[in-house]
């Protein structure tokens, strides 16, 4: 909503002549002033000039030399290219040297055109920023002002300050200058009433005019409909002041009738519509729902197919307007129009909103109707607009107006208990102040006693229906700055920590392991999910942003791969990302989709190394990350079990894909990315991933948090190195050693793996360290040697391994 500072000051003359101050008051009252700009920026320096002589430019065709009288300054000859320079005696607008015209992004300087020096310029409206387009320079009525007068004194409408307001949807009253004036007056503690009508209020009733018949067939959609008729109209462009006002408020001037309805729209916030009455068949207006498939070509030239939910204005033959949204082209007021019918109605907000959305039209009219216009100002607005149209068109109004009230709109009255104010706000506003505030805002006090008062809500405040709404109005005018600070005395009882705490531990652990946290969208494409072998999406968006973001994810990997691919394009090779987010699964019958938290990480490029040649990450980095994460999160050691071919997730490399288990429970997977998938996402083959189901991990049975007591007796360590065929998993050998070390074995670990000189092809020397210890005695060397010999023998015979010396 754009608002004119000059107009507001005309309505409330006691307002300070300071747009900033007024903007501040509006904002403090809850009407945000988003921007403030000058209309006619550039017009300030311009002066009125009278043409005294005209001659052709000696060198340039199409240009003329115009001598103008600038009053006290004298006369000057300037070059002008406009075709509409008036004959001597005509008034034009002169911009002297140094005038800045922001609308054109120029400052007028001394110019030489074809050997003639021009110091100044005759201006068009567009150049002064008071019109979006101009057909030639401004020509003013010859008696308007004396040469030398300031243009903005002669044409005050050419200069204004325009506020761009952010009006919240609950305040339709602030979508017109009358409503804004009321609010700013109340906020300024000014007693104010709307200016009186210039003409007497129209008499109305079914018989007030016999020229038109109005029938409302849908009382819900159209509670009120009123109309007047103006005959013998002359349709022509509006006077400058009106064009300026509309242009300054962002509305394109069209013709005197349409412009007048738009002016009233901006004054009252009440949309109006003018029909060419001779195009209304049988002089009959019918307000009804459209019939399925009925067609209407609207003013924007679009032929629309209507549905039975659309409210339409019809004549006896067909729809002639989409009620409250847009008029029809067939009944549009044109230069040929002789009689106009002016509509002033109240339409149901929800009906208008649905129609506007269905037809994707957002008009000044629908914007207001859908928020709820003043249901009580119909006759006032109609009277005002009719008088205005009569004046501008030099027509005459058919006496009276037709008003049909199909449904009364009842005004609620609301009781306000004085005690409730401090109960809700924590401080008191005196009842007298509240009453004054409400009165200034248009509330009428119906009754009252020491404890409470009852107020009738004005018709222009459909947002007010409860006691708390009155309290809001009271505190809004009292000033939010005056709200004291207090701290609540009782706070909630704390419950057990929820998912948040766990998820934060996950993130902290991942950061500890040197990963960077990525934030990825929940919506992905089905193809991306398929590419990573994720479950098919079951939550499908009906209105996605685009095909690439059309379903809710069942894997975090596509988002991470997108990020990796982008990083690679930026030349970042070594990438370590993780993401914690929600995956969306199928909804159990009658319930919302299942949401589970997951963790995914990827490592790509080289492993961080210290002053030595870096090596690419591999599957064991992924395994280590998974085990590390789970150790932090569960205090347990996880296993990674190689997938059998039938269980392997297809996005992982067939040689390097493992299931992550904690105490036998599958909690995730790790592996090297399959090269085909790497190619699809445009990431390198050297990418490994970790996926963990955080829900499963959080649900693992709680482990007793007790320490293992430290051993009392010493340990002895024996190492053995076995030359193993690559077909033998080292983990199997380790398990075998653990088994044969039996009760004397405390731990077994792999501490070296060597391939190369002295080791046969497809073999590796793997070194194990066995720690022997008994809990109840110091083991003798003989005992340990005997057990270790058994361990070695068992491993050798079981795996056909050579002992490496």
């Amino acid at each position, binding site marked *: 909503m754009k608002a004119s500072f000059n107009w507001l000051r005309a309505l409330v003359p006691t307002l300070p002549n300071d747009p900033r101050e007024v903007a501040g008051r509006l904002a403090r009252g809850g009407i945000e002033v988003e921007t403030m700009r000058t209309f006619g920026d550039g017009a300030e320096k311009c002066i009125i000039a009278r043409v005294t002589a005209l001659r052709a430019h000696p060198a340039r065709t199409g240009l003329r030399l115009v001598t103008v009288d600038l009053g006290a300054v004298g006369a000057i000859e300037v070059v002008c290219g406009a075709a509409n320079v008036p004959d001597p005696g005509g008034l034009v607008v002169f911009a002297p040297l140094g005038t800045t015209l922001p609308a054109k992004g120029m400052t007028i300087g001394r110019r030489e055109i074809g050997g003639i020096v021009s110091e100044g310029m005759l201006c068009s409206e567009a150049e002064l920023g008071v019109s979006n387009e101009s057909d030639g320079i401004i020509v003013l009525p010859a008696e308007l002002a004396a040469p030398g007068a300031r243009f903005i004194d002669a044409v005050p409408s050419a200069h204004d300050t325009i506020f761009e307001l952010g009006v919240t949807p609950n305040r339709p009253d602030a979508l017109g200058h009358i409503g804004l004036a009321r609010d700013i007056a109340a906020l300024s503690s000014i007693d104010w009433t709307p200016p009186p009508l210039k003409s007497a209020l129209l008499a109305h009733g079914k018989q007030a005019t016999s020229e038109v018949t109005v029938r409302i067939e849908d009382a819900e959609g159209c509670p009120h409909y009123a109309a007047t008729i103006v005959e013998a109209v002359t349709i022509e462009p509006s006077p400058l002041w009106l064009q300026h006002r509309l242009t300054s408020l962002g509305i394109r001037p069209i013709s005197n009738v349409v412009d007048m309805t738009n002016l009233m729209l901006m004054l009252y916030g009440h949309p109006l519509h003018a029909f060419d009455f001779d195009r209304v068949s049988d002089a009959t207006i019918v307000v009804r729902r459209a019939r399925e498939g009925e067609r209407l070509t609207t003013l924007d030239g679009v032929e629309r197919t209507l549905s039975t939910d659309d409210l339409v204005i019809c004549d006896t033959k067909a729809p002639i307007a989409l009620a409250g949204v847009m008029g029809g082209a067939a009944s549009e007021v044109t230069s040929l129009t002789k009689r106009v019918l002016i509509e002033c109605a109240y339409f149901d907000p929800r009906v208008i909103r*649905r129609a506007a959305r269905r037809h994707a039209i957002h008009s000044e009219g629908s914007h207001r109707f859908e928020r709820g216009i003043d249901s009580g100002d119909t006759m006032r607005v109609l009277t005002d607009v009719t008088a205005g149209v009569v004046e501008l068109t030099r027509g005459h109004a058919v006496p009276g107006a037709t008003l049909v009230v199909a449904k009364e709109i009842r005004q609620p009255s609301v009781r306000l208990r004085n005690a409730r104010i401090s109960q809700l706000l924590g*401080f008191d506003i005196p009842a007298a102040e509240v009453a004054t505030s409400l009165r200034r805002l248009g509330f009428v006090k119906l009754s009252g006693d020491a404890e409470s008062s009852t107020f009738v809500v004005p018709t222009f405040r459909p947002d007010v229906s409860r006691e708390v709404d009155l309290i809001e109005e009271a505190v809004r005018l009292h000033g939010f700055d005056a709200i004291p600070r207090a*701290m609540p005395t009782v706070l909630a009882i704390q419950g057990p920590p929820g998912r*948040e705490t766990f998820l934060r531990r996950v993130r902290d652990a991942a950061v500890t392991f040197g990963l960077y946290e990525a934030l990825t969208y929940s919506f992905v494409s089905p193809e991306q999910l398929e590419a990573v072998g994720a479950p098919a999406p079951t939550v499908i968006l*009906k209105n996605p942003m685009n095909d690439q973001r059309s379903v809710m994810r069942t894997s975090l990997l596509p988002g991470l791969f997108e990020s990796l691919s982008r990083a690679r394009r930026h030349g970042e090779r070594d990438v370590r990302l993780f993401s914690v987010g929600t995956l969306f699964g199928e909804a159990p019958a009658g319930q919302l989709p299942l949401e589970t938290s997951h963790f995914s990480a990827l490592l790509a490029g080289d492993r961080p190394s210290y002053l030595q040649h870096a090596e690419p990450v591999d599957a064991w980095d992924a395994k280590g990350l998974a085990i590390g994460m789970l150790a932090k999160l569960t205090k347990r050691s996880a296993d990674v079990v190689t997938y059998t071919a039938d269980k392997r997730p297809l996005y992982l490399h067939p040689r390097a894909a493992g299931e992550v288990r904690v105490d036998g429970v599958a909690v995730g997977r790790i592996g090297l990315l399959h090269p085909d998938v790497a190619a699809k996402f445009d990431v390198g083959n050297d990418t490994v991933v970790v996926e963990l189901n955080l829900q499963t991990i959080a649900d693992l049975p709680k482990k007793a948090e007790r320490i293992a007591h430290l051993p009392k007796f010493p340990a002895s360590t024996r190492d053995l190195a076995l030359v193993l065929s690559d077909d033998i998993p080292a983990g199997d050998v380790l398990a075998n050693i653990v088994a044969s070390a039996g009760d004397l074995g405390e731990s077994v670990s792999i501490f070296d793996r060597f391939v190369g000189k002295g080791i046969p092809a497809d073999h590796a020397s793997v070194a194990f360290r066995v720690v022997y210890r008994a809990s109840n005695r110091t083991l003798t060397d003989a005992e340990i040697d005997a057990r270790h010999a058994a361990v070695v023998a068992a491993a050798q015979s079981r795996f056909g391994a050579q002992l490496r010396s």
Partner: protein
Amino acid sequence: MAGPPQSSNSENIESNIDAGLATLRAQFPARFNAAESEPSLREENAKLLGKKGELTAILKQLGAVAPEARKAIGERVNALKTEVEAAFQKRLATIEAAKRDAELNARPFDLTLPGRLAAPIGHAHPISIVRDEIVDIFARLGFQVHDGPEIELEDYNFTKLGFPPDHPATDMQDSFWTTSGHLLRTHTSNIQVRAMLSQKPPFAFIAPGAVYRRDDEDATHLPMFHQIEGFMVNERVTFAELRGVLTEFAERLYGRDTTIRFRPSYFPFVEPGAEVDVRCVFCKGGGCSICKQTGWIEILGAGMIHPAVFEHCGIDPEKYTGFAFGMGVERIAMLRYDIPDLRMLVENDPRFLVQF
């Protein structure tokens, strides 16, 4: 007959031994002192006293010495050994001290070489950092974190919160709908509804999470972003307490010299409703490009929970009052870190993430 020559031979040998010992005694200090390092000292010591050393060689003659003389020689040998051992230790200590001094005085290590990290350094996302910080502030003020679904019923996301169907207020939050008729929550205010439906006051919750609005991605909009909603319900919770809690919050987030202001505004689920600005932390109120010369930055929406919301959730609005507030994590992060374009937050460029 057999005695004297024997004895004389024995005495000769004895004097040989003594001469050998005397030679050793005379030599060892110099030989030790000539050793410059611990290994050469030990080598010298072994030459003197080792199994194959010079003393052993001398003592090989001992078998030929009369048994009654052996004890005395043994005592002399031990005395010499003690002397040598003491000298060895002394020399060893000298060498070690010299070595230690040399080590201490050698060229300093090159600490300009990079540090060796225990693990590579990880980085939390700025949204997580800001979100955790805000949640922690409210947790310390007594608010408890409450979870809720990201895919929600229209009833919980809109209707129960006082957004009637076909009301322009829903324009403020253009929604994503699923084919099964649910929507992606447009705010975490759905938690308010869920908490009120499932629990009895008093309570104070903070609800962080992802929310979705159908806005085109640009420098100031993302279709998915993060919100933190907080609310408190009890008998006689007041607007002044809302101001108190939010002032405390702002002071803890931005420092004790922060001030906030309330401006009347509209959110369907609160009445009165307010937008809350903090004094611009960059220009301290003087006006700058970040606050668009106003000196204030809007960071929160807030208000007293609308009685209709209480009624929709089965709570008596005559008995209970409450406040609610909500803020966008992206906006606060953007302001804090001077992030010029919100899309940087979802692009996950390592060069961006490494800065947090």
